[in-house]
C-alpha cells in the first residue's frame, strides 16, 4: 500500500504511487494545462510534470482552474 496526500486527503494505491506527476494527473483525468501543482510545498513548473517522480507519502496540492473572468 502506498499513499499520496492530495489536497489534504489521503489517496491510497494498491502497489505503488503513480511514477510521475503527469501520470497522476492522467489517472485523475485532470488537464495539466489547467493545474498548478505543489509537492511538499514546492511549486512544480508545468513543463516538469512528466519528469517529476512521485514518492510514497508526498503531500500534493493540485490547484485547478476553470475559465471565466
Amino acid at each position, binding site marked *: 500500500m502506498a499513499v499520496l496526500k492530495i489536497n489534504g486527503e489521503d489517496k491510497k494505491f494498491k502497489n505503488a504511487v503513480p511514477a510521475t506527476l503527469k501520470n497522476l494527473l492522467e489517472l485523475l483525468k485532470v488537464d495539466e*494545462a489547467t493545474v*498548478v501543482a505543489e509537492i511538499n510545498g514546492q*511549486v512544480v513548473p*508545468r513543463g516538469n510534470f512528466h519528469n517529476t517522480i512521485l514518492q510514497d507519502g508526498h503531500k500534493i496540492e493540485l490547484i*485547478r482552474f*476553470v475559465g*471565466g*473572468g
Partner: protein
Amino acid sequence: MTKLNYEQFEAMLIERHGKSAHEKLKSATVGIAGLGGLGSNVAVSLTRIGVGKIVIADFDLVEPSNLNRQQYFIDQLGTNKVAAMTENLKLINPYIKIDGHQARLTPDNIPTIFSDCPIIAECLDKADQKQMLVETVLNKMNNVKIVAVSGLGGYGRSNEIQTHKISDRLIMVGDSTSGIESGFSLMAPRVAIAAGHQANAIVELILES
C-alpha cells in the same frame, strides 16, 4: 461641476477608513492582471478606497460582449481596455497612480510588468492563462502574493463563491467548478461577487501586513 481637491478627497477617505488604514492603502501597490469582468471590478473597488497605485495589464480592446459585466461604457467600444479603464478610474479617483501595460502576459514579461507589486490579482479569462500566471508568480516572484479566481460562471449560488487561503502566497476565490468550458455564461452579478471577494482579500492582505 463640483470638484474635490486632493486634500478634500484624502480627508473623505480618512473619515471613512481611519488614518491608519488609509495610510496603508495609500502606500500600497497592487497588480491587476487582466481587465475583464474580474479585473475591471477589482480595479474600481481598489480605486474607490484609495489604494495608492495599481499596475494594470491587458492586451484587448473593449467589445460589445464585455458590456454585460465589465466596467466600460458604449462610447469606449474599440478602445484598448487599459486606456478605457484608466479613463474610468481617474473619474472615480483622479489621484490614484496607474501604471498601464497594453500587453499579452507571458512568463517572460510578468515579473517585469508587475515588479513593483507585492500583491497581484489574477483576473484572466482562460483556464490555461490563469495557470500560467499563478505558476509564474509563485515560481519567479519571491514573496509576491497572488489572489486568483476559479469558478464564477452562471447565476445564483452566491454563497458557493468562497475565499480559501491555500498558502501564505496564494489565495483562491470561486466555486472551483462553474467554468465557461462547462457552458456557464458570465453575468455581472456573480462575476462581481467573485471580484468583490478578490478585492476584499487584497484589502485584508494590505491592512494586516
